[in-house]
């Protein structure tokens, strides 16, 4: 199973939202990282067929998704950034409605909805209107609808936006559970969302892919470049211009502990093990 993005460009009037993107998705969780406005949503909307690329093609198992049509749609699940629902529908009614649109027969649909509601801890609220649920629950309903057809490709756009830490953790856990033998593409600008669950990472900025590969390999690529040091408060401005400071902590007495990326470290710096956050910040704005 393979989803290939082949030199895809999307142009909106004078804005190139996605520029000549080449990607090859295989089974596993793919974290699509990038700042706001990087083109992640546009790319995802093209992958689900909601937008037509201005240039290039998207292939699923060797066939263009436009030629596959409904066959392709039957194999995907999609949770958009702004999860929309009918305010007057209950959780169960909504899932039945989407299941029906996905062409799942009544018996299978019923069984599947019961299973998913159980799995996502929503059985108790299945008769409640979606509008009355909490943000986290709504998101879970969103992922339920995406999972209804047991898709081979699950595309979720900023799924944790607006959720509290516990809900985010729980959401990551759900994704990790359901990701077996699937291509899961998860877009976010929150690094911690994908840090522990993504097998692969894609970094996007200004419509272009700036890095892609296995998570560990990418993180390891900056091994030996991440340091920690305690500096004077007044030095911060100069240091910020010279180094890519990824974190800092006020130690008191005019001292600040900084974590930074550099090829040649400051005096008295301690080499530390890089994490995804370091990698992301080093790439998105470049090492200074």
């Amino acid at each position: 199973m393979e989803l290939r993005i082949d030199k895809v460009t999307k142009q909106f009037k004078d804005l190139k939202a996605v520029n000549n993107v080449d990607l090859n998705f295989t089974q596993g969780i793919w974290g699509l990282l990038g700042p706001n406005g990087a083109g992640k949503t546009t790319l995802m909307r093209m992958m689900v067929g909601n937008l037509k690329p201005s240039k290039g093609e998207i292939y699923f198992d060797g066939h263009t998704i436009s030629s596959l049509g409904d066959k392709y749609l039957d194999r995907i699940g999609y949770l958009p950034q702004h999860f929309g629902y009918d305010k007057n529908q209950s959780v169960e009614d909504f899932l039945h409605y989407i299941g029906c649109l996905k062409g799942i027969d009544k018996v299978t649909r019923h069984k599947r909805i019961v299973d998913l509601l159980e799995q996502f801890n929503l059985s108790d609220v299945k008769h409640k209107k979606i509008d009355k649920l909490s943000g986290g629950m709504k998101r879970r309903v969103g992922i339920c609808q995406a999972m209804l057809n047991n898709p081979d490709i699950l595309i979720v756009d900023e799924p944790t936006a607006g959720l509290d830490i516990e809900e985010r953790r729980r959401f990551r856990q759900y994704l990790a559970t359901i990701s077996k033998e699937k291509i899961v593409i998860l877009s976010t600008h929150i690094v911690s969302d994908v840090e522990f669950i993504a097998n692969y990472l894609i970094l996007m900025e200004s419509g272009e892919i700036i890095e892609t590969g296995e998570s560990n390999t990418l993180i390891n690529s900056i091994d030996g470049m991440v340091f920690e040091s305690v500096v004077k408060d007044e030095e911060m401005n100069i240091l910020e211009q010279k180094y890519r400071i990824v974190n800092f902590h006020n130690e008191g007495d005019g001292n600040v502990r900084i974590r930074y990326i550099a090829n040649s470290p400051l005096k008295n710096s301690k080499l530390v093990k890089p994490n995804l956050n370091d990698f992301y910040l080093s790439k998105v704005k470049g090492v200074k």
Partner: protein
Amino acid sequence: MDIFVSELKRQMRAKRFILYILIAIILGGLWAWFIIGGRTEGFMMTGCYKELKGMEAIETAAKDRNIYAGEMTVDNFQRSCEVFLDSIKEKDGESDIIMNDELLKLAVYADTLIMQDYRLKKMFGDDNLDSWFPRDFGSHFYENEELYYQKLIDINTKNQAEKELALKMWNEVEKPYTYYGGFEVWRDGVEHIQIFGFVLLIMVGFFSSGIIAKDKECGLDEIISTTSGGRRKLLFAKLFIPIIMGLLIYTVGMGTYIGILKHFLPANALKTSIQVCGGATILPYSLGDLIGKMILFGTIGVITIAAFTTFVSSKANKASTAMSIAVLMIISGFLLCLKGVSDNSSIMKTISCILPGSVSFAGLWFGMVQIVSIFGKAMLFFKFHLFISILIFFISLMMTSWNYVRR
């Protein structure tokens, strides 16, 4: 089918469905009550049946007038002419009509004669306008009708084809005319079909406006469009649910209205020729035919506005925008049709035809001689309006399909 039922359930959820249907029924009932309950009867401001109102007035007047009901023979016209002229008493240079039983029974005939006399004098510029018609006027009723309508056709047709069609229609009018007591209330009831239809049309516009736009507004469309049934298969439901709901609203509302009228008003009055109903017309219909045609126009109007609003809904991002456009179209259609008739302006009439849903008011084209020529071929104007509406209906369906599948 599963998708259709699923969408139908979503769109016609109990509360909303009941609200629309209930409003249609209540309006239908109130409208019929307004027509029947507020009815008063009379003849030439003589004050007969003055104390009576509603069904009592209708039944009493109909009972009197039914003595000479049925085919309106020349003999009856002549008789009414004599009875009417005998009932006029001159006093101080002014004429008063003294009512009597016989005149009450022949009131419809007398009324028709007075109307014919007025029309003829208007058309031919008779000198004796302030005098009543001659004593043998009734015996020439159908000859005079022929005279009037021939002239009317001459004036209101622009070419030979139009004239031929107008004459054909006029020749098909059954003579002698027919009437049955109570037709006056039916006539008012028929006129109100259009106005009540206008209100129902707005309700249909309200319902249809959100069919697609609401999904876009709340973001649900983003999910729907990524499902295998969310485009082509759902399209069928999106296209036809507003039409079904529109027809339902119209059937229930208009059904209640007509049902109440039929229950209370004499059924045989529907056999009355429309030439007796007041306005001049060359169309060979009875009041019953007229109701049928009005309802047909209303039905076509409803499906056209449902289809058009669905199209607007597929283009607009907000249900309120679609609703505004739909209402504006209906109101404009209504106003321009009225203006087209009052100004007798062919440009105005043509513009009003193009407005979706305006066919509900095509009954306005039944009066006088309303014929249009297209590429030299003459056509009754209401048929032309009907044709344009059906065209708009199909174009709307096609445009919606194009928009929805390619979104």
